[in-house]
């Protein structure tokens, strides 16, 4: 039988659909011309210009700080939530599960608004700290989701075995539970990191003056299109980083070979 070409054609179409705009952006980051409409020869001038923009570097620093803080905190809280959700018995647990899952689909604008109201009514000064808190709230759910999936086929006998071999509850957790769950927790953390890095809507609500993150600054820059190609260069670099992060997280979540 002749192999159908349809799957291959579909795959190609999907890839073109996804990556044509991105490819166009990367191409344009090397365009000597200021305008995307015409190719004016290869140049790295926008990358050079990027290093001169202190505000962009500062915003990138902010974004990295927030993403690191938010992903670390949500790794701890999300793992704790996943453990709490492990028992499937009561109605209370069903409610708990729902409450942890809802932020995954909650409109950002709603979360942004409610967080802003909360921070104001608590008298918190809007800053990098409030942005980090806001990011933790939605990152937590993603980590909980990933760790929960890992827990589903987790062999709790191994934990009992550790206790049987003389380990205290804490030792069993540190020496067995944590190492076994680490890939899941890390993958959840990486997911949280990428979500935090490019969040715009929620950040926009809870950021204070002068605490711009990369997405909010880029959006502001787009309005004055003078430096648009600089953003292309920046986006290309971020694209590279994202690919690397996703590749690592896929490697971590890959199921281990059961037997050979």
């Amino acid at each position, binding site marked *: 039988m002749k192999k159908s070409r349809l799957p291959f054609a579909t795959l190609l179409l999907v890839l073109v659909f996804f990556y044509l705009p991105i490819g166009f952006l990367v191409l344009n980051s090397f365009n000597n011309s200021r305008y995307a409409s015409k190719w004016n020869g290869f140049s790295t001038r926008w990358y050079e210009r990027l290093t001169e923009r202190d505000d962009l570097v500062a915003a990138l620093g902010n974004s990295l700080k927030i993403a690191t803080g938010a992903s670390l905190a949500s790794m701890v809280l999300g793992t704790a939530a996943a453990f709490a959700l492990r028992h499937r018995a009561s109605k209370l647990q069903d409610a708990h599960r729902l409450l942890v899952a809802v932020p995954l689909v909650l409109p950002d604008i709603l979360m942004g608004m409610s967080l802003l109201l909360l921070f104001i009514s608590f008298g918190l000064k809007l800053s990098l700290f409030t942005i980090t808190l806001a990011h933790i709230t939605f990152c937590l759910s993603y980590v909980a989701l990933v760790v929960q999936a890992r827990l589903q086929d987790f*062999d709790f006998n191994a934990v009992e075995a550790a206790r049987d071999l*003389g*380990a205290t509850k804490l030792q069993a957790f540190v020496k067995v539970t944590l190492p076994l769950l680490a890939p899941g927790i890390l993958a959840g953390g990486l997911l949280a990191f990428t979500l935090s890095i490019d969040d715009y809507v929620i950040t926009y609500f809870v950021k204070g003056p002068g605490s711009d993150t990369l997405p909010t600054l880029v959006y502001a820059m787009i309005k004055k299109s003078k430096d648009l190609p600089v953003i292309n260069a920046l986006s290309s670099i971020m694209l590279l980083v994202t690919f690397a992060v996703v590749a690592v997280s896929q490697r971590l979540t890959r199921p281990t070979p059961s037997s*050979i």
Partner: protein
Amino acid sequence: MASYLRFENVTRRFGSFTAVDDVNIDIQQGETFSLLGPSGCGKTTLLRMAAGFDKPDAGRILLDGKDITPLPPDKRPVNTVFQSYALFPHLSVRDNIAFGPKIAKWPQDAITRGVDEMLDLIDLKAHAGKKPAQLSGGMKQRVAIARALVNKPKVLLLDEPLAALDLKLRQRLLVELDAIHDEVGITFIYVTHDQGEAMSISDRIAVMNKGTIEQVGPPAEIYEAPRSSFVAAFIGDTNFLDGRVTEAIDPRFSRCEVNGFGSIVIDNDKPVTPGDRVHLSLRPEKLLVSREQPSSSDLENAIAGKVEDVIYFGSHTRYWVRCGEWRLCAEMQHRKYQLDEQSPKWGDTVWLRWHANDGFLLEQYRAEDEGLLTLPDEDS
């Protein structure tokens, strides 16, 4: 004999279900003691309470004279071999075995020596650096045994350790396990639902049913002299006959009337008086099948019947013989070249013969236990 591990009036309930009901067991130092019973009989719960994963609702557990009931698993000088192996997948074979000694903070050279000793014992030195995922099922189980034994526990608890392996491997590991037991001399408590495993490895067996102990004894005693219909039917195959005692022949033997059989002679395994209703367990291999009427003697029973089913097993043949309202199972070993024998065929009239000594009077009979003889084996 002083008992080493003792279950004293131990009861464990889960909601309204009583998993273990007022159990008393005394286990001697150095013996291999099996807890044998169908799933749900409470044997694993009993083992988990010995390990410390579960606490009894009533009663206590004593180890070497000391009450260990309130101790958590990590404070008990016992170790467990789990049915699912429960190896640490992120650690190598060597590090799996070294887990206990490291937690106990042995000196480094003692850890190395202890682990090497265990690797020799289980013959896996060449695989010490591998992760559990790279091992076969049998190897994993051997690592699980070594990981428990390296700690020199006072008692080794084995929870259906061979259940996940295929038949040939199971038989081989059983022999290995027996050899390991002889070498280390540690008390083994072996939980299984497989009577063959229990019979071949145990010094003594406790047969459990519905949370209670039906009988405790050496394998041969359990097989030949079952106290209850449950034990008789769970361990091997048997025929149950019930009748009424009509006369005492002498202190050892009585005459008994079985419906549809007429009169048979029974051994007084328990005190009986004329008029008593008795239940007799007759193992299939104790019944001799012949086509000619045997010459009768005082203590021999012989009854005629018709062959209804024949199953050939190679080493032996199993016959189901209809005798009035009874359908009896008899087994014949082929000790001679079988094709020369004139063996009974379907529809033949045959005689079943047994000596009065060869049946056993049950102390306790429950009609429901007959179901164990007809239901197919759960895991076959």
